[in-house]
């Protein structure tokens, strides 16, 4: 799962990014509205955390621009001012949820997972594919009823695949979802991650569509 964080305060951005990475999320950080808008327009993020009080381009304008350009990614807005008015403006611009500073990490993560799940169209917080289950609310995988231990990169790949189960996820998209903006995309290591995952959840759980990408399928093929 890849998150775009648009926050002008470097310390706060650092803390949020750190907290989200601890939850296995890939995080890109933009420190102003212009960069944030550009990244949101060009990269396939699963969700965005958007501060409304941004320099240069205000957060609401960024959000409005994304929606105008047809970007449907779920957006969680951060408001520093006790602003219900800000919240209303944010929601009118297309926000999906809000958090008022200060907030706790758990709260942010929970809200993020909820908006992503809702955006993906999953009604229940649990997504199951054969003996593999993802609790979207906690972000925990279970395999055969037992907790599955995964590295951050493995989690991101598996999460991306299970959110799009039964469909082929192209390698490029998968790489974009897994690697953060400044890290070089290494397709080899993507192969390595898939191989490691297959060792953990079974060789045929992840199908390889030659030349296209990967698929998590409920029906053994």
């Amino acid at each position: 799962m890849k998150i775009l964080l648009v926050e002008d305060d470097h310390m706060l951005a650092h803390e949020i990014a750190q907290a989200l990475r601890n939850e296995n999320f890939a995080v890109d950080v933009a420190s102003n509205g212009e960069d944030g808008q550009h990244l949101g327009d060009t990269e396939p993020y699963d969700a965005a955390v958007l501060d409304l009080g941004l320099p240069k381009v205000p957060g609401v304008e960024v959000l409005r621009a994304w929606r105008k350009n047809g970007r449907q990614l779920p957006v969680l807005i951060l408001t520093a001012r006790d602003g219900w008015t800000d919240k209303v403006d944010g929601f009118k611009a297309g926000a999906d949820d809000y958090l008022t500073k200060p907030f706790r990490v758990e709260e942010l993560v929970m809200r993020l997972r909820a908006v992503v799940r809702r955006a993906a169209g999953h009604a229940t917080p649990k997504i199951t594919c054969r003996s593999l289950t993802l609790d979207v609310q906690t972000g925990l995988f279970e395999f055969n009823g037992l907790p599955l231990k995964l590295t951050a990169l493995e989690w991101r790949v598996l999460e991306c695949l299970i959110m799009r189960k039964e469909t082929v996820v192209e390698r490029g998209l998968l790489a974009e979802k897994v690697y953060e903006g400044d890290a070089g995309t290494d397709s080899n290591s993507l192969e390595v991650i898939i191989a490691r995952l297959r060792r953990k959840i079974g060789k045929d759980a992840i199908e390889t569509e030659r030349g296209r990408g990967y698929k998590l399928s409920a029906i053994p093929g």
Partner: protein
Amino acid sequence: MIAFVLQRFIQGQIDQRLDAQIVFLTSMLTADHHGNIRLVGDADGPPFDTRQQGWYWKISGPENVLRSRSLDGADLDPPDVNGRPPPPPPDPLRSEKLPSDTRPAPADGIGPLDQLLHFRIQSVNVEGLSVTIATSAPRSAVQKPLKEAMLTLGASLGILAIALVFAMLLQVKLGLRPLRHLRQAVAEIRSGQRERLPDGQPLEVQPLVDELNALLVQNATNLERARRHVSNLAHGLKTPLATLSLALPKASGDNNSLHSLVTVMDRRIRHHLGRARSAATSGPVRARTLVASRARDLVLVLAKVNAEKPIKIIDELPADLVVACEPQDVDEMLGNVLENAFRWSHTKVAIGASIQGRDVLVVVEDDGPGLSPDQMLKAIQAGQRLDESAPGFGFGLSITRELAELYSGSVDLGKSALGGLRVSLRLPRGEPLVEVLDSGERRPAPTRAD
């Protein structure tokens, strides 16, 4: 004073006439060698031809006496002027040439019919004879025109005085009318119905109006600046606090007490910023906010956030209710109350509003667990937080209460017919003068031109 001048004037006129008669009589007077005097021709021209009206004359010669016909045979007894202080002593030089007095002497006396008469008496020398000529006019000839004149004058002066008083009153009324309009306009500014004084005032008042308008603009600017400062302060404090809150889990094992410190700091900041912001607002309350449109926006936000819960919203808000509060503050108050209702409700949230005298009563109800009377008391006390595990609860209600009280409103908690909590928010009613649009812009309502 006027009477005196008039009397002198009328007296002068009569004296002239009498003196003319004396001159006239003198010119016709001749004497024969016996010393008898007589008149040549008719000396009784008007008004000396009217009988017994007081217009008489009498010529006393050394041998005989001539009388006017108007005496009708009666005698005229002119007072003796010799005993009176004589007319200015004759100039010795002139007295030789003009042995008689040049000016007739005035005197008052009584006529044959007990009339009060005014005499002019002069001694003349007619062919060597000393002759005294007395002419008389009735005193009433002086008094009557004077009385008439005074009466007319008095009446005219009276009418003039009344007219002047009315003119003055009218002038004051007309002259002060712009000030009265101005007072009305200032009152309207104070009650929030208008933002500035109308231009196009009379020349004398316009500078004052300009100054007042400039003052209002300056006030508004200061207010806006204060708001911006407070808002920036909030941003400046909240962001590091958020950073601190996120950094905490790594820093210490005693997370909970540190987190509660952050919560306390947040609470204090919110409390004081709310006060500061509202203090910046207080001044002329000119805000007009439509309750329904703000509440519906908030409900949309909360319904989207709580999309997981199948909450039915019972919206009984009249479309046109207006409160005299800043839109931001209305958002804050309703937002906190509605957020609470959504958080605790199972299936239903009801929101309604009604006019209660000069206030608007907004009622938000839910079908959640509700609160015990003891909890209710705690919930609206400043800084009290009922349940740490449900962030924002109680705290939001106390913020709402503080804001409402700054607008002389109130918050009451009670039990809802739906089963949960009922929050009654009382706010001052605003006149539906301007329509507050969703974006917060204002435009004049079509029904009333500003």
